[in-house]
């Protein structure tokens, strides 16, 4: 077995095994350590003796033994009196065939990782670590922080979960909307990291795939939650467009100018199926409407098809009625400019509370573009300067610089 194949097997098994162990022992560290030890054993045994038929079942049995070893070592270290012996594998476990061996506790694990009592900047990282099996180094790269910083953040988060008594349970109905929202926001934040990197090179390529996998798992576990399905759809639509997001110079290509021929159709179709299911469940939340806007764009087959601005504007109107905030208003203004003219869009943008968006790059980029098209070159030029000062990524920077330069002519 190659190192890559081993790594893949470990990653595939990670969430189920860590979840099952954590549910049993109510201890994330123990679950993680036991799984890591099991992987070390597998890396020694499998290449020499051949890999087992069911990788996950082998790893789970090994991880259970490792968990018991760790518990015994802890007891010895803490010199505790002989206690009720740690939970041995139950008769049920011994009897279970491989296919039914590992209880699926991933959903509980996701809710633990995304509990609002966990620091917001640690939730996404913890989810990627425990559900997607990403290494600390990979997560650190995705979040652009040093590895020791990320390791610290994860340790603190796990300690908080243990100390504060965060339950290892699916939330009660009274908490459900709030807690599910925390889970979905966490995934949105994590995905935004992958999406920022338009080129999707290196670490971000596989990271984006992890986000696809994570939303697939969540949709499997919660098949009737419109927001879950809508988020799975939205991430697919956004990922489908990745091959068309940069031009040959590496500059960003705005959505309406992307060549739909380069979009990944299979992902779009998958997204459509999720969105349809969300609609069938009666979803009309802001997440469902957001996914619908993506869907309308992705229905375009070539640059010769008219851009769907009118439908997009209708959807933004609907979105505004469920979620009236500055960012929705800003995005709506972009569509408004196409349908009803730049002047009207500018008036709308002027009415948005600019103070709240001072450091929000898209606000300045949209304003600059509208001012330019309205012939207000001086104002446009200063808006571009503000946008460029806000540290855009390389692709967006190139595009903004090009737009700003076009003002000179």
């Amino acid at each position, binding site marked *: 077995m190659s190192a890559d194949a081993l790594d893949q097997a470990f990653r595939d098994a990670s969430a189920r095994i860590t979840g099952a162990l954590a549910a049993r022992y109510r201890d994330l560290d123990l679950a993680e350590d036991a799984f890591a030890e099991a992987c070390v054993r597998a890396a020694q045994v499998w290449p020499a003796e051949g890999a087992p038929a069911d990788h996950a079942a082998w790893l789970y049995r090994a991880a259970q033994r490792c968990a018991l070893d760790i518990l015994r070592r802890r007891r010895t270290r803490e010199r505790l009196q002989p206690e009720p012996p740690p939970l041995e594998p139950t008769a049920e476990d011994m009897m279970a065939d491989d296919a039914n061996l590992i209880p699926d506790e991933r959903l509980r694990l996701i809710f633990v990782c995304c509990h609002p009592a966990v620091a917001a900047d640690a939730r996404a990282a913890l989810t990627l670590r425990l559900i997607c099996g990403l290494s600390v180094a990979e997560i650190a790269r995705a979040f652009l922080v040093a590895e020791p910083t990320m390791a610290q953040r994860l340790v603190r988060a796990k300690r908080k979960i243990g100390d504060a*008594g965060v339950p290892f349970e699916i939330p009660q109905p009274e908490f459900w909307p709030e807690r599910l929202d925390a889970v979905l926001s966490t995934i949105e934040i994590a995905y935004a990291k992958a999406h920022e990197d338009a080129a999707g090179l290196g670490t971000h390529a596989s990271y984006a795939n992890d986000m696809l996998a994570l939303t697939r798992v969540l949709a499997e576990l919660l098949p009737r939650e419109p927001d879950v399905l809508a988020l799975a759809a939205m991430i697919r639509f956004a990922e489908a467009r990745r091959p068309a997001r940069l031009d040959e110079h590496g500059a960003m290509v705005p959505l309406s100018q992307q060549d739909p021929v380069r979009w990944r159709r299979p992902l779009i179709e998958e997204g459509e199926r999720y969105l349809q299911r969300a609609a069938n469940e009666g979803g009309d939340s802001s997440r469902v409407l957001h996914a619908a806007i993506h869907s309308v764009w992705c229905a375009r087959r070539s640059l010769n098809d008219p851009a769907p601005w009118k439908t997009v504007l209708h959807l933004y109107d609907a979105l505004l009625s469920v979620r009236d905030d500055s960012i929705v208003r800003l995005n709506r203004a972009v569509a408004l400019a196409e349908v009803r003219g730049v002047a009207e869009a500018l008036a709308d943008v002027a009415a948005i509370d600019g103070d709240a968006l001072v450091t929000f790059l898209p606000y300045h980029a949209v304003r600059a573009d509208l001012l330019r098209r309205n012939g207000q070159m001086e104002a446009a030029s200063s808006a571009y300067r503000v946008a460029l000062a806000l540290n855009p990524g390389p692709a967006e920077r190139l595009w903004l610089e090009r737009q700003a330069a076009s003002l000179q002519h």
Partner: protein
Amino acid sequence: MHYAFLIYEDEAFYGPNKSGPAMQEIVAKHMVFARELGARRIGGAGLKESSSATTLRRTQGKTTVHDGPFAEAKEQLGGFYIIDATDLDAAIALAKKIPVSQDGSIEIRPLLGGDVG
């Protein structure tokens, strides 16, 4: 597990010496809440206003006594509960029912060792 609920509110709302009508109103609500807690309530009390506080400070082995609370803030510690709950979610569900008159915060802290002597 045992948790402390530390209640922070702007005490000015309750009038001088916390003796205004708003105080009587909130005390009545706390009595209802305490009844609802029943056996889950291990302890707790309302606190006199923060100007009545005296702070003992120990710095490098030297102890000094100061007038006033440990930290000045817009919202002051005004009372606390010690409760028994199975986990954080159960504690949060209880804490959500704590009466507060205006804006305020409730800090939920597990007790060390999870137990009171």
